[in-house]
């Protein structure tokens, strides 16, 4: 899946950026240095960032500017990180967030 906009009539050709590896739910994926975590995931076809605490419903990017917190995930062990405004770093460990706490477990 490639949804990166490489050519754009107004913005021109997309600048190639250095590739970095990040870990999403245990799997290695490729991101571009400095891009936002949620954008990197979306580019890898991942658009579910967390599941809600009460009804276990999926949530994804909703405002993309750090206002709504729907894209919160566990980043390097820290939960509730707004991934749409947090840039990726090499080797970053990103996990789908279940509820309000550490991910990888059920919502109990």
């Amino acid at each position, binding site marked *: 899946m490639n949804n990166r*906009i490489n050519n754009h009539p107004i913005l021109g050709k997309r600048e190639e950026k250095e590739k970095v590896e990040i870990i999403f739910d245990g799997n290695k994926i490729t991101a571009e240095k400095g891009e936002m975590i949620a954008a990197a995931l979306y580019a890898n076809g991942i658009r579910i960032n967390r599941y809600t605490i009460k009804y276990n419903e999926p949530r994804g990017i*909703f405002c993309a500017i750090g206002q709504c917190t729907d894209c919160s995930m566990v980043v390097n062990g820290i939960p509730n990180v707004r991934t749409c405004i947090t840039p990726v770093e090499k080797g970053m460990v990103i996990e789908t967030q279940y509820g309000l706490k550490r991910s990888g477990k059920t919502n109990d």
Partner: protein
Amino acid sequence: MIEKELVIIGAGPAGLSAAIEASKANVDVLLIDENQKAGGQLFKQIHKFFGSSAHYSGVRGIDIGKELIQKCEDLGVEIWLDSVVIGVFPNKQIAVEKKGKGLKTIRAKKIIIATGASEKVINFEGWTLPGVMGAGAAQTMTNVHRILPGKKVLMIGTGNVGLIVSYQLIQAGAEIVGLVDTASKVSGYEVHSAKIEREGVPLYLDHTIFKAQGTKEKGVTGAVIVEVNKHFQPIKGTEKEIDVDVVAIAAGLKPLSELANMANCKKTYISKLGGWVPLHNENMESTEKGIYVVGDTTGVEEANTALEEGRLAGVDVAAKLKKLSNSESENIKKQINKRLKDLRLGPFGEDRLKAKKKLIKEYNKYIKAQRPVNDYNTGPKAVIECNQEIPCNPCESACKFGAITIGEPITNQPKLDEEKCIGCGLCLHKCPGLAIFLVDKNYDNKNSTVSFPYEFSDLPQEGEMVEALNRKGEYLCEAKVLKIKKLESFDKTPIVTILVPKKYADQARNLSPIGAD
């Protein structure tokens, strides 16, 4: 504590232009933004702006953003990015979580709040599914992150945001499967609508979204839209299923005015401006003196109006800080106001013009109702009645807020900075001459309070009625004792607060038990 002449919160078009104007007049400016980059939402606005040449017409938002940031850099404006203002406190103190530096406190002479707006949403079945997002979010993904949010997008809303974002999604390679609006005609500019209609995009007017379909694993996979009757109720049997992977909601914006709220700025509800908005005067100053509100924070409009409002506030701050003469500032303001008026002309602007006028009218009404007997109106303030050259200065060190200055020589008479005085009253017992009083002229609509030291053994009780006396010990009126403050640190100098009618606020300076001679 960091001291600044002007702190601007929010580095979008309004904040940047305020910084430029103030900085041009040599005001010491600090601009703070929570994002990694200044420019606010300008960098996703890749279209050309309307307006006259004085309004950057024909220039793309993204280029306006670059130009404003460049100007700020040329002027040497200090900018803290990635830094979140977490509160605005009394005395114009601002707490900021500064990137990598932790919590910082700043005391500003003036504050401009330019925090912008956020997208409104509408609720329908499935609206929380991943793949349903704000139109602005789709625009950010596309134009800033350069990632296409979806291949087939359904746009809800035909205002300018819905129309422009649809066009930009097409430019980026997405298919807009349609625009949905409950209205019978397009709400935004026809020219914007025409650009997408000639790309063959269907408009579903008199329609609404019924639900977004999808799964827990995939998010949105489809949508159902339905026709509405003239009461905007769905008409059964007209449901249409559409294959989409993204539903974008362009339902308007609402002002982000939490910080203005926290600063106690009075607000009013004006739906044409997006909801609750802080009141302001012609100079964009809120009901809190020295705190300004500009841009979408005080009414959702467009980037070009935000620019002008920011300029207006920047110029006024410079004038108030005596960095511009009155004639200079009035001259610049006149030009800005002319441009602002132009931007609010025509059928699309006149509602906003009316709403903005209402905002100023309500400001004036509020200020008039608040107008104090004398100048000050913000709670109790110290009144220092020490008029001779006595070598004495405990009041200066007693004030933790730097509101009282004596300086050198020690025989100087104390000067009170009313803006800094928070009315704590800690200077009262410190004055060996018992010459400091605390007066709250507008305790309520009818009454003022006067606090003074009382070092006699017939100290009344709280709640007791006493006689209020003037500076000559003459009877003024009966007064209720509201409070007796008696701390060990006061060293046997209790502070009594009495309630008197407003007309006696400047006269009442003592008390006597009722009936005593």
